[in-house]
């Protein structure tokens, strides 16, 4: 899938990349070009083309001639120049997700004076890298991201790299559909449940009536029906093939290691709409970085992440065998799969699929503390993966089924994590270094996540983009963002231009994030030092939610002279 679209103006860079790969300091994934370079100047063409996933061809939009786009390997402190040329017949853009840069270089049309790149035109991005870590880049126009416009960015630190690894791979997860995204959005507008083939049926009713009693099952249905809400609404869009580095489950993208090596995997959720539960059966993962920012190592067996988020993990496979990297979307409508193996062509076993959860009344914000976990208003600690036990008391769910079957998951956060294994919780994330700004926030900004599922309308503070009420702060302000999710879907909220510090109970080592997942019906808070002047997009990173209006402006007004 490599193409001619990606050209490097400095031949030296290519040579460096090749030399580095041979030396084994890092790896280039097969079939793709990536660059380790000192100062770099790049040409990046955006073209329409075709890709093949699991043997099936479909249309795609590419940057640099491939899906995903070439991994950009840069070094902190260098200045990069990218000439992006639009070879499509519609406007496009490239947004550098998670990078700290001048507003006009951020690449979101309609913000900070950036204008979409028109067909045939070239726009030159130029910025100095002020950070290190794992990031990514993608289109910010017309749902082109869903069509393949995404790729990874890896920035090496100028100083010592605290994470020691013998191998270093980028693992870009995405969701691929052969449908035109405009058609997908139109279908959702016509029928919000258009893609849901896991609704509760009469047959489910009789099964639940048998397990929980007729009246319990009926009352539960009546509660949901009265509100005109659907507890099976975990994912708006289905029909996806889930990809790892552009490869389908059958293609089986493979990363090589030698037994005993430390392997760093940089997971990027570049999907349009999918929360993934990620695990590598047989290997514990040590999370070393979240959203590109180093965290104190946390050993986990699995993690969940939403569109836009990244996690770097280190694994230490000792055996001479194949391990499966397995990522299931939370509606369990398929899986992404890749292999970690000592040699090409090996395959690990495909693990048993996890059961799909069902939303609870707590996900509707209806618990009002009754169930005792009360994560709302207590920061993000229990926001994601409140841990086994949450919500389970309600309505007879959660307990092992009367028929002796496995425990049925209950509530959005329940990934059916087996007892004795550890899933990453937001509360586990502890920044590697102290937060630089220890001021208490001077004021709190409530960010209500709002929507009408039935009409597929999504908004921030009740106002869709176009009629938005911008959030305004002054340069240098220290503010708290209080995300209140009034909907029954989780929203990965992405702020451009700045990191927020998640208030997850880690004191002065709050993790820095560019995407904060706010589970349904919950409240999550983060603090922010407004030190990047500009007019930044602030939106839900579920692509169709953003397109339907879930975006606002976050304005950092410049310091008065």
């Amino acid at each position: 899938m490599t193409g001619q679209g990606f050209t490097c103006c400095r031949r030296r860079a290519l040579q460096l990349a090749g030399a580095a790969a041979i030396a084994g300091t890092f790896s280039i994934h097969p079939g793709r070009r990536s660059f380790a370079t000192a100062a770099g100047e790049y040409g990046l063409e955006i073209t329409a083309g075709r890709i093949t996933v699991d043997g099936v061809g479909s249309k795609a939009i590419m940057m640099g001639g491939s899906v995903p786009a070439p991994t950009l390997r840069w070094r902190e402190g260098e200045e990069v120049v990218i000439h992006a040329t639009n070879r499509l017949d519609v406007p496009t853009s490239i947004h550098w997700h998670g990078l700290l840069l001048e507003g006009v270089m951020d690449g979101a049309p309609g913000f900070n004076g950036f204008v979409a790149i028109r067909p045939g035109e070239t726009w030159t991005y130029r910025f100095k890298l002020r950070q290190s870590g794992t990031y990514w880049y993608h289109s910010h126009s017309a749902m082109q991201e869903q069509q393949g416009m995404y790729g990874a960015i890896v920035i090496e630190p100028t100083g010592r790299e605290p994470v020691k690894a013998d191998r270093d791979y980028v693992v870009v997860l995405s969701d691929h559909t052969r449908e035109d995204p405009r058609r997908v959005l139109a279908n959702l507008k016509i029928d919000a449940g258009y893609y849901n083939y896991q609704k509760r049926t009469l047959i489910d009713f009789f099964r639940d009536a048998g397990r929980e009693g007729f009246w319990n099952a009926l009352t539960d249905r009546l509660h949901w029906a009265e509100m005109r809400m659907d507890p099976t609404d975990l994912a708006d869009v289905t029909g996806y093939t889930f990809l790892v580095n552009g490869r389908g489950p059958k293609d089986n993208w493979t990363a090589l290691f030698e037994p005993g090596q430390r392997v760093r995997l940089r997971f990027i959720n570049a999907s349009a709409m999918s929360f993934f539960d990620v695990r590598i059966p047989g290997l514990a993962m040590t999370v070393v970085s979240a959203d590109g920012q180093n965290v104190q190592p946390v050993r986990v067996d699995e993690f969940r992440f939403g569109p836009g988020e990244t996690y770097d993990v280190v694994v230490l496979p000792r055996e001479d065998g194949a391990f499966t990297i397995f990522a299931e979307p939370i509606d369990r409508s398929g899986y992404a799969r890749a292999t970690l193996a000592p040699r090409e062509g090996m395959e690990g076993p495909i693990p048993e699929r996890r059961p799909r959860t069902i939303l609870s009344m707590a996900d509707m914000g209806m618990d009002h503390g009754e169930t005792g976990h009360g994560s709302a208003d207590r920061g993000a600690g229990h926001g994601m993966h409140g841990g086994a036990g949450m919500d389970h008391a309600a309505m007879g769910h959660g307990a092992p089924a009367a028929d002796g079957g496995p425990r049925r998951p209950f509530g959005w956060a329940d990934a059916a994590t087996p007892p004795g294994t550890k899933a990453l919780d937001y509360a586990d994330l502890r920044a590697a270094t102290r937060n630089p700004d220890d001021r208490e926030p001077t004021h709190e900004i409530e960010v209500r996540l709002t929507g009408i599922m039935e009409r597929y309308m999504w908004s921030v503070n009740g106002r869709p983009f176009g009629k938005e009420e911008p959030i305004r702060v002054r340069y240098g302000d220290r503010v708290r963002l209080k995300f209140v999710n009034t909907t029954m879907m989780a929203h990965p909220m992405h702020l451009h231009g700045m990191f927020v510090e998640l208030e997850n109970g880690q004191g002065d080592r709050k993790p820095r994030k560019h995407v904060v997942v706010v589970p349904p019906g919950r409240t999550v808070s983060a603090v922010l030092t407004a030190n990047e002047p500009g007019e930044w997009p602030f939106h839900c990173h579920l692509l169709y939610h953003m397109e339907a209006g879930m975006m606002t402006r976050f304005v950092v007004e410049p310091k008065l002279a």
Partner: protein
Amino acid sequence: MAPTTRWNEARRYLGAAVAVLPALVLGGPARAAETGHLFAAMQVEQLEYRLKNGANVLAWDAHAWVGTDDHKAWLETEGEKPNGERLEQGEFRLLFGRRISDYFDGRVGIRYDVAPSPDRGFAVFSLHGLAPYWFEVDASAFVSHEGEVSARFSADYELLITQRMILQPSMEVDLAAQSVRERGLGSGLNDLELGLRLRYEFVRNFAPYVGIHWERKFGGTADLAREEGEDAEDLAFVVGVRLLL
């Protein structure tokens, strides 16, 4: 000028007034078209053959809409044509409306009946949306160009037996404030229709179905039907297809 003449004149303007409303409501969609948030859909809810004693009937119920989250225009049609006979019912509605709550649209517009004869034009006021417990409902009031007032209420529900096999009960009731003999309508409760259709969604856009359709005329409407030699009550088996285009 006699009061009736004045009333006739007023009625003539009523149609014109209703025709102007769309322009006001369509301002929203026109703006949205610029930002690419204009959507459209066409749905044939029922296209069916009703098998019963006497003449079998071809019946349809379809609608299309174009607009935004907040403003939409609808074109709706329904009708019945007995086998080998003239059109028994043929109704077209052009409605414009806006979102008045999370789940409901308020709509105004015009309706034109090409059958039964003589033709009639109506002004329409409708409340359309999704009621608690997932009932899709529509309540409409009609004022004809002859000044006759009538109303209709319809509701339906979808029961998922499996993900693709869906049972849809439906009901519709028609009421009139006065009798219109020439169109076979009495005053008060005119008729009640009940349906039960079982469809299979091979894909969302294509679902054949079978079912039953029962209707009964009441009061003066029933009397007029009997005078015409028709039954006041009718039960039919239906075979049809539901399409989303």
